[in-house]
């Protein structure tokens, strides 16, 4: 009897010990696994999250050059009231909308056409693809300067070509007229972005099964029909991701506009990011600049949630 209980006690003890050991090993495992993330999380907290929170706080303060070292003064919702009664906010929103929408639609159409073409096998196709990709990698600053020159009023090559073809009768001041400046920066950005659409769509197209097209051909589907019935539906995941990325990339554009027009003439090319820049760094009104950033933050978070939901849905499929 005694020996039996003694034995069970011992047995229990070792079992517990093993369990305890297992638990501490699990804990160690968890810690070492998460140690890999530690540097990134630290960096994120200090240099990304903190500045963003700072920015939000900024948007509730009155802060300019005179008092920004001491932290500014509390202003409640005054900054938001100020920008919502500023007509430039609505102009910038409209400009951003026109710019982004035009960029996405035109870049997508041309990018898709180029992807369908460069998907074919012909001599030199890889070289041409690569060459076009160079355009996308050019710095926006370079694209801005280059298009300012190409679109120059008097000696710009664009006006010359358009006159020769007969599309225009007299030179257009693309960059420096209120009427055409938004078109000019949009066109430059479209050129810059097309290769990105092309390469992503090429990547998507390359995953499509070729025999499906053979089968469709046997069934008598012509090129256009198989494009509509096979290519487009199968490309849906790639297209959705691409349009989301395109939307965000176009909405973000700052460099190109800064270089080409500086938001002008008469704010004709002021988009939302430029508006925030103008308030913060040209007028040194950090509070109102912060408020515009706050609005952008909300827009971006909404977009991100939509994007993540789309990705989830696609993955579930």
């Amino acid at each position, binding site marked *: 009897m005694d020996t039996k209980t003694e034995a069970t006690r011992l047995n229990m003890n070792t079992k517990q010990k093993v369990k305890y050991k297992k638990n501490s090993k699990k804990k160690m495992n968890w810690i070492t696994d998460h140690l890999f993330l530690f540097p990134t999380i630290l960096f994120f907290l200090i240099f990304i999250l903190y500045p963003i929170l700072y920015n939000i706080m900024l948007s509730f303060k009155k802060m300019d050059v005179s008092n920004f*070292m001491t932290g500014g003064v509390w202003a409640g919702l005054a900054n938001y009231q100020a920008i919502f009664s500023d007509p430039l906010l609505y102009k910038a929103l409209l400009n951003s909308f026109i710019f982004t929408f035009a960029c996405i639609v035109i870049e997508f159409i041309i990018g898709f056409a180029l992807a369908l073409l460069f998907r074919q096998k012909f001599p*030199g196709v890889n070289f041409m693809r690569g060459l076009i990709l160079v355009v996308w990698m050019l710095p926006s600053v370079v694209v801005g300067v280059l298009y300012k020159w190409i679109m120059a009023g008097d*000696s710009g090559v664009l006006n010359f070509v358009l006159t020769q073809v007969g599309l225009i009768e007299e030179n257009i001041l693309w960059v420096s007229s209120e009427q055409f400046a938004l078109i000019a920066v949009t066109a430059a950005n479209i050129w810059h972005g097309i290769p990105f659409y092309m390469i992503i769509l090429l990547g998507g197209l390359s995953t499509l099964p070729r025999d499906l097209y053979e089968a469709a051909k046997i069934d008598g589907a012509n090129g256009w029909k198989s494009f509509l019935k096979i290519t487009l539906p199968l490309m849906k995941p790639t297209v959705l991701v691409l349009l989301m990325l395109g939307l965000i990339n176009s909405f973000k554009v700052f460099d190109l506009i800064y270089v080409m027009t500086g938001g002008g003439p008469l704010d004709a090319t002021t988009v939302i990011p430029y508006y925030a820049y103008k308030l913060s760094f040209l007028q040194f009104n950090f509070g109102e600049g912060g408020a515009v950033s706050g609005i952008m933050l909300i827009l971006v978070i909404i977009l991100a949630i939509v994007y993540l939901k789309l990705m989830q849905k696609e993955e579930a499929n």
Partner: protein
Amino acid sequence: MVNTNNRRTILYMVLGILATCIMMFPVYWMFITSIKPLNEIFSSPPIFFPNDPTFKPYIEIFQGEKSMLLYMKNSFIIGSGSMLLTLLLSAPAAYALARKKITGLVIIVGVLITSQMFPTIIMATPLYIIYQKIGLTDTFLGLIIANTTVLLPFAIILLRPFFLRLPKGLEEAALIDGCNKFTTFFKVILPLTRTGLITVGTFTFLMAWNELLFALTLSNDNSMRPVTVGIFNYMGEYQSVWNNLMAASFVSSLPIVIAFIFLQKYIVDGLTTGATKG
């Protein structure tokens, strides 16, 4: 049959050449303007093939106080610094997110994707004020950190699929061979994801090289400023001396041309991986 196939190939080739020429014309125009003498630049009709090519613009932009050489050196420091810091942080993070049981994985990936979407100006305003307070304005380190705030989320998202692709059970095998978790990562995993690291390295370097807004707002001292700000300064200085401006643009795009020649495969790989399997 063979005949129609041939004819089709020729048609595609002609269309391909045409599309490439149209897309590349502005780049051609940049180069051709940069080797024209000033009087040919403003001639009407424009000259499509320079009669009298000159390299004077290329010599001029490398002279004086605001030499391209200085700007390019700065860009190189900022670009490689941003690349190294981003790789250092993103490689272990992407590895853990791909192959370890991470608490809150979905939230972390969601946060990364969201912060990848922030317009730079959202970061620039607060960083400007914070840097003024802690004295990081006008330092390379300040610009490198600022660039990394944008590059890090992007790099982790781009790098994660490369770790996911490695065969299962790799860690267990290394463990049996006497590696611990960290030596496994450095000695076994990292060498196997070389392609991914080169891709992300190339991208982050080029993105940092192309960056303007941080450089514009977080550095006032001309001796610290990168090539993007340099070109913008030239615009004010040279006004309509377009040959010099185009020469400066062309020179500042050189790293991209070099990357294109040597690393094209990695760039295409990275782009398609990042966008379709992120």
